[in-house]
């Protein structure tokens, strides 16, 4: 049960871009801040919404 919940949370974090944000911070050696999130999410969303959503 705990494994399932852990997986569900990890999936939600991936779908919600929270994991990607953590990777971004780790990769660039930066600390979390509002400005950093805005920089990350703008770049992320530009790529994400350049693709069509499935029917």
């Amino acid at each position, binding site marked *: 049960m705990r494994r399932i919940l852990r*997986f569900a949370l*990890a*999936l*939600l*974090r*991936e*779908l*919600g*871009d*929270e994991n*990607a*944000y953590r*990777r*971004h911070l*780790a*990769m*660039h050696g930066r600390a*979390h*801040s*509002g400005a*950093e*999130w*805005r920089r990350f*999410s*703008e*770049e*992320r*969303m*530009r*790529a*994400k*919404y*350049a*693709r*069509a*959503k*499935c*029917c």
Partner: protein
Amino acid sequence: MWAAVAIAAGIGLGGIALYRGEHINSLWLVLAAACSYATAYRFYGKFISARVMLLNDERATPAERLRNGHDFEPTNKWIVFGHHFAAIAGPGPLVGPVLAAQFGYLPGTLWIIIGACLGGAVQDFVILFASMRRDGKSLGQMAREEIGKVGGFIALVTVLLIMVILLAVVGLVVVNALKGSPWGTFTIAATMPIAVFMGLYLRYWRPGKVLECSGLGFVLVMASIFAGRSVGESASLAPVFTLSAITLAIGIILYGFLASALPVWLLLAPRDYLSTFVKLGVVMMLAIGILFVRPELQLPAFTRFTDGNGPIFAGKVFPFCFITIACGAISGFHSLISSGTTPKMIAKEWHAWPVGYGSMLLESFVAIMAMIAACVLQPGVYFAVNSPAGVVGATPAAAVATISAWGFPVTVAEMSALAQNVGEQTLFSRTGGAPSLALGMAHIFASSGGGQAVIGFWYHFAIMFEALFILTIIDAGTRVGRFMLQDLLGHISPPLGRTSWMPGVIATSAMVVAAWGYFLVQGVRDPLGGINSLWPLFGISNQLLASIALCVATTILLKMHGAKFMWITCAPLAWLLSATFTAAWQKIFSPIPAVGFLAQADRMEAALRGGTAGNVADTQTLIFNARLDAAICGIFMVLVAVILVDSIRIWVGILSGSGDRRVHEAPFVSSRLQAEEL
């Protein structure tokens, strides 16, 4: 064990195919589907992985080689599975089966199961594999490399055209679900300020807290469903939110334009997060609900409408069942996802098997659940909700008389009581599939607990769930269409190609919105309800894109193995081409006006000449629209015929030894990724 599963699949399929008793329990469909998927996954999927694709975990994937922390990132295979499933699951697998249920539960169910195992999952898997071996290249890029420049260009144009039809048809589904429904309209209208609030929350107040923000958004949306009941019952507020179809259509068109031009973080992204989470939650809830309630199917295995005279859409079971259900069985759109984000996240080559093949099987199971939700309704109720007034009559008395005469008894009192229970003014002629799906889902959820007291809440919850991700598709699709158009127009006028130049953004957004908005208004004004013409057009375009994807896949398999394994993609391709070209041909040239666009135009023109047409201007518009639809259908056929001929030319060259057999895979690099890193 696998022999037992395969036998259970056979018993399940045989059971639903041969049983002709009073009613069949939905568990038979679940058993047939689940065991067929398990068998196909274990044997056919594994065969393709091991013998055809020669998947190799020692070979580094693009996620490992090109790792950048953004797009390219090796990810746990079940996370990628969930990610890919969330990306491919849209309204298609929910709405298509509901519409195809007019033939009875059997044709659609068999097509969903067999089509997914042998066609849809194969297409998604092979394209994912091909893209993974080519550094995550898109379908268009692969078509250009493997088939030629013509293939790449045609793939681009087809996608743009499909987007226009897709946005119009999903817009129509929302319009038909919300027209004359103050409760539903209020709830959906409330999601917009909620999304803006979420956008501001995430950007300025709690940056990066996506799950927290989405949880808050979900609570607010649920509150808006509860508040919607009071709005619907309020003498002063109900009229404000009781909108006609054309007003709603104009509202959605304006919304699409604004959402396309507004910053993504403000409206689109927060609602996209919320709709993705709600979508996954509802799919799980529906699966649990079906297993818990085990409802009996009320619709028969076959209805009289297999002969082509169906009220929801005209045309015989072949080919129209096979283009009406696309996303649950095989969908060309999936090839864009399989060659988009997913191949850049695959950590080990063997992960492509569950992700590519397995996700499509789960999507197919969603379609089976939608079929069950539609078929648990009484047939009379199902046809009363889904049949347009132009077919069954504009008054409730006329509609029930027509539907009862078909052998599906229903009464005005029954429909009024049902409408009252779910908090609607009427449920007659609510075409588009969404209201009947919501009714079926509400029936299943309410039977799990709460009964009739909560059915209204569940109905509007289901409508909210459908509208939420349809609106996300509309604004994301308009934005993508705008990018494509800007890319194209940038060659003529460079400023128009700049995504930061506001006049260009506004002009191209307006052009894209005008294109799909035209078809949406056309659907709203159509006396046959719009779905009759637009859904087949969407199905044809989507299946033709799948044909393009299968042409690319066949070319790749031919280059890898010669003719040995080309049947794997050629068999679904041959079936798809025969069904889709037949459907497209009939939609253009059938002499039956309910089926053929040109016959429809001719009949209206004759009425115009004979002076029997109601409104001259309206009739002229309808004639133009029917001819436009015929032209669009013809363009799709020509585009795919060109790419097919081009592909066959390449295939003949490869088989005769004169053609280029080079595969354009990235060179082999040994993987250093350890399993525990994932």
